[in-house]
């Protein structure tokens, strides 16, 4: 196969095109996703390729968009919703949490809600407090929702196709800074699916086990290359879906490293990543720990507008290097 280093936008677009080709019941809806090609250019030319029936521009009403999608899903369609900024899911919360997540269970499994909600998440674009949040933890706390956080173009394509196949709602959190970055792995041209609920061991090392989500996966990988030079090697685990969460590779890795570090962009307080720590310390995996668990997360502040402060508010590569070095050096 020829060299196919796509960006995450391109990979997501390929996945959606495959789904549109494979299943007539798939359609996409959202604000500015048609003629304009999406706020971040993810849908691109899909409107021109598949037409306005299957790539539908909607009015500016997130509640209306998700409500429409829930109804369509209940009547046999497979809608893919795009929310321009994940922050705006707050507008659609009733439809997501009280309707989409619950219906399958409240009718004894008799109905399905096969909808995918894609949302642009995270900071780093200078868009300030209302357009920069990492809200995956909200959804991970709602039973009935699956939550996916792709970390690379390859992962994004395979996970999105699996999410579209899923019979019930999937929240798909895409980090904005990853949209325009070309991945390091080739993205196969055809369809492939990455099952939801299976963690990926990105790399293996002997000193430290790092669990990181979304953009923190590539940041941790960059940190790992630096740490390699110092003789500190880390295992990196990307849960890919934070709900359901596959912890087995974490437990297995801790038997070898004995040190755990968790990294997320979302604020530390009440964040999803704490669940990883909780699962370790409430299992027999605790007995393998040779160091206190290290935690790197966003500060408990709204994302600031000033670029320096925006950067300082969430973990960067240097922070990861420093913390990892400290944990390994202090705990032998």
């Amino acid at each position: 196969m020829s060299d196919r280093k796509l960006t995450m936008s391109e990979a997501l677009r390929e996945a959606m095109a495959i789904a549109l080709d494979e299943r007539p019941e798939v359609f996409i809806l959202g604000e500015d996703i048609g003629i304009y090609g999406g706020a971040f250019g993810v849908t691109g030319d899909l409107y021109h390729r598949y037409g306005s029936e299957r790539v539908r521009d909607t009015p500016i009403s997130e509640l209306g968009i998700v409500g429409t999608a829930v109804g369509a899903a209940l009547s046999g369609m497979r809608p893919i919703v795009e929310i321009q900024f994940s922050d705006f899911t707050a507008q659609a919360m009733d439809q997501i949490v009280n309707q989409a997540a619950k219906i399958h269970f409240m009718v004894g499994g008799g109905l399905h809600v096969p909808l995918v909600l894609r949302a642009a998440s995270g900071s780093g674009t200078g868009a300030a407090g209302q357009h920069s949040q990492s809200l995956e933890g909200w959804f991970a706390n709602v039973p009935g929702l699956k939550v996916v956080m792709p970390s690379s173009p390859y992962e994004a394509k395979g996970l999105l196709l699996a999410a579209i196949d899923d019979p019930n709602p999937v929240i798909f959190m895409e980090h904005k800074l990853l949209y325009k970055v070309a991945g390091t792995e080739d993205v196969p041209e055809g369809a492939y699916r990455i099952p939801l609920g299976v963690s990926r061991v990105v790399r293996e090392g002997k000193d430290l086990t790092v669990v990181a989500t979304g953009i923190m996966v590539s940041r941790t990988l960059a940190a790992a290359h630096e740490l390699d030079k110092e003789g500190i090697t880390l295992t990196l685990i990307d849960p890919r879906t934070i709900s359901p969460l596959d912890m087995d590779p974490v437990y297995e890795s801790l038997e070898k490293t004995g040190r755990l570090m968790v990294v997320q962009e979302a604020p530390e307080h009440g964040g999803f990543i704490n669940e990883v720590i909780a699962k370790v310390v409430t299992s027999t995996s605790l007995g393998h720990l040779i160091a206190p668990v290290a935690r790197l997360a966003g500060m408990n502040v709204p994302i600031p507008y000033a670029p320096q402060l925006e950067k300082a508010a969430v973990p960067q590569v240097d922070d990861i290097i420093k913390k990892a070095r400290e944990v390994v050096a202090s705990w032998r």
Partner: protein
Amino acid sequence: MSTFDYAVIMPKMSMTMEEGELLAIRVNVGDLVKSGDVLFDVATDKIDMEVESPADGVVKEIMGQIGSTMLVGAPVLMLETTTQVMSFDFNTPSPVVETPAEVSIVTPVVIPTSPQGSVKAVPKARVIARERGIDLASISPTGPDGTITWEDISNPQLAGAHDARKAANRKMVAGAIEKTRGIPQISLTRFSIHTTSGLDEGSAHLVSTWARILRRNVHLNLSTISEDLREHVGIALIMESKYGLAMPVFRDPDLMAGNDLLLWMKKTREQARAGKVPVEMLTGATASIFDLSHTKISSAIPLLLPSHTTALSVGAPNASFGHSEISLTVDLRFCDALEASNFLDQLVSAL
């Protein structure tokens, strides 16, 4: 006949006694003892005493270690006795009993087994300790905050190396003190009322103030080894180290800007704690300071170190009155007692 376990404790022998040293244990586990038999010997700074058995019985367990200092009330050994023994709480006055119609019976003291929970250790160290039946209290911690690390328990060789390093350190200090034993010296103490700030702030102020006085009185700032040192004032500050104590030397601290000295002090304290005093700070002292302001120790007699002419110690401020005891030891070959008291006065007024 029912038997009782009775813990014989470190007794409170004076109103001010808080702890005592266990000098000797006269019995062994399994020995039959009679009421009044001597069980062990205790020493305090004021008095040595033999502790007698309160009842007839059998020595069941010995918890105290000879040579160790134990808090008043700490169990030294356990007797199994058929006699119910009254135990006394030394801290509360006895109630006045007008007619002792009935002897009140106190429940025998039950001593918990080794409290592993109070020892700080990483989870894996606990697992290994349990698997191998190791008492965590017997392991020397090398981890942050006095925590037993995985390496401490799984690699006794390293832990052994740590202990050996500690022992070597102790031997070195003891050897140094031994060398100065023959030097004619005097120690003077006086009270000082001075405000104490943070640990490093306080030490930095002390070090630079004493250095200034030594610089003004050059015959006090004398190394008995090297003439070169006259040019400089070098003060060894006694600090905590993972291997015991360290004595990094601050050279000419009085010539530095206060903030620079403070930063230097903070950095050195960290290095000392990690057992890594920079080589250039190991020598060149003419005086030592033992700053106990932030401990519970009210005074210590400063001991001269080889080549030093003075040694200073500052105790913790008295809880009620706020004064601290400052003690100065001088080498009488270079300074007489009257001069020494003058220098001590100078220091107190400067502080």
